[in-house]
């Protein structure tokens, strides 16, 4: 898929990156309140390392106890196909949700699902826009 420009002049890739940036921040806020920043940082780092093998752009995510920063990613990968970005983040989120379920069954997922699904749907809508 080619990179498309929207009416406002912003690249679709930028929009998808912004969308996932907001989503990851929300996930961070919800889950860090439940399990603490240190463990969450570990889970994010492990997930980025694993999924980054297939989607190398994810390796530019900066994870620390302070949260997640996508500044480098936004600079370096704005020309990447929005679909590729969407798929990468989808895999990352799936992996994180698998880890959350493994640790605490539904306790974390129950809090996170309502945040994730609307955003993922919005990303799909952005990508499919002609």
């Amino acid at each position, binding site marked *: 898929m080619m990179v498309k420009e929207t009416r406002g002049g912003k690249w679709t890739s930028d929009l998808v990156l912004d969308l996932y940036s907001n989503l990851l921040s929300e996930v961070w806020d919800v889950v860090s*309140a*439940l*399990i*603490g920043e*240190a*463990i969450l*940082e*570990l*889970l994010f*780092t*492990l997930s980025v390392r*694993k999924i980054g093998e297939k989607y190398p752009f994810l390796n530019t995510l900066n994870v620390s106890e302070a949260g997640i920063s996508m500044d480098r990613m936004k600079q370096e990968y704005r020309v990447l196909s929005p679909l590729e970005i969407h798929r990468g983040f989808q895999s990352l989120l799936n992996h994180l949700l*698998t*880890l959350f379920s*493994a*640790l*605490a*069954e539904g*306790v*974390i997922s*129950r*809090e996170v699902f309502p945040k994730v699904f609307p955003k993922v749907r919005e990303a799909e809508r952005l990508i499919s826009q002609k």
Partner: protein
Amino acid sequence: MRLIVKNLNILRSILNTINTSFEMKELVESAGNNLPSLFEFSAFGLFWKEESTLYLYQEESCPLSFTQEVAKNMLRVLNILGEGAEELDRVTLQIEKKKLRPSHMAMDPKATLKSYLTLPLAVEEEIMGCVSLNSDQPNAYDAQDLQFFSVIGYQMAATLKHYQRFSSIKTMAIYDTLTGLYNRRYLEERLMAETQKAFYGGASLSLVMVDIDHFKKVNDTFGHTTGDLVLKEIASLLKNSTRKKDTVARYGGEEFVLILPEAGLEVTVAIAERIRRQIEQTPFEVGQTQLNLTVSLGISSFPSHHAHSKEDLIQMADQALYDAKRGGRNRVCVYNPPQR
């Protein structure tokens, strides 16, 4: 509000007991004793990777099948976190059973794991193990339980990190860094304990002093790196040729000392002779060439040699070693008291 304050006070007290624990078992027990005030659980587990040990604090009536299910689940979680598949049969289980619920609410012998919370114990991205709350009741845990449990897990991880650091300091203090054998300092301590046990308890105790023959030549000809490799190989050979209860230490340079508790002269001579033969028959690979080495060994033994202190035993073994060297090396000599 009152409940939250009460829970926070309990949490504070749990964190305090974790902080002041000096041993893993104590840590698990003191946490376990306090956790029932905060959570409903059938088993609380702490798995420490370094020792491959799973400490479980569980309800008295907990059936074995439930214990195994908990253990398997904790290892499964670690596996999902990418920490390698630790096999259950290689894990040491340390189980502490406590009465956590009244008798009429004892666990069903067929109870299965219905809910759990498992958190990795991690410091600076290193996963040291995991900690887990487990219940035979469905939906036993909610978001607030997870919040409290994560604070406890975080404190436990920090405490484990202290244990790890302390244990590496302890390791440095008692082991010889090159050979991995005990060092001289530990040898003196051990010998003091063993001589007291033997002198007052009447058990026999022997000492073997081992010296590599012409070791200086190895260093001069092949260099110190090769010399170090030879020392390591001989150290491992000594370790493998002795019994579990024996202490093998590097005394200094190319000299080693073996403490053999409850070993009379006959047994000690047999062990020393076996070591001598084994080293004589072992070709040491040095680059392209093979090196044949021999050792000399001196033995002293209580009560045979009427030693009165650990210093006596060392001095007697040293004298016997001197006799072995003077007698042509590659031999075992037993202390021979001076003739009057």
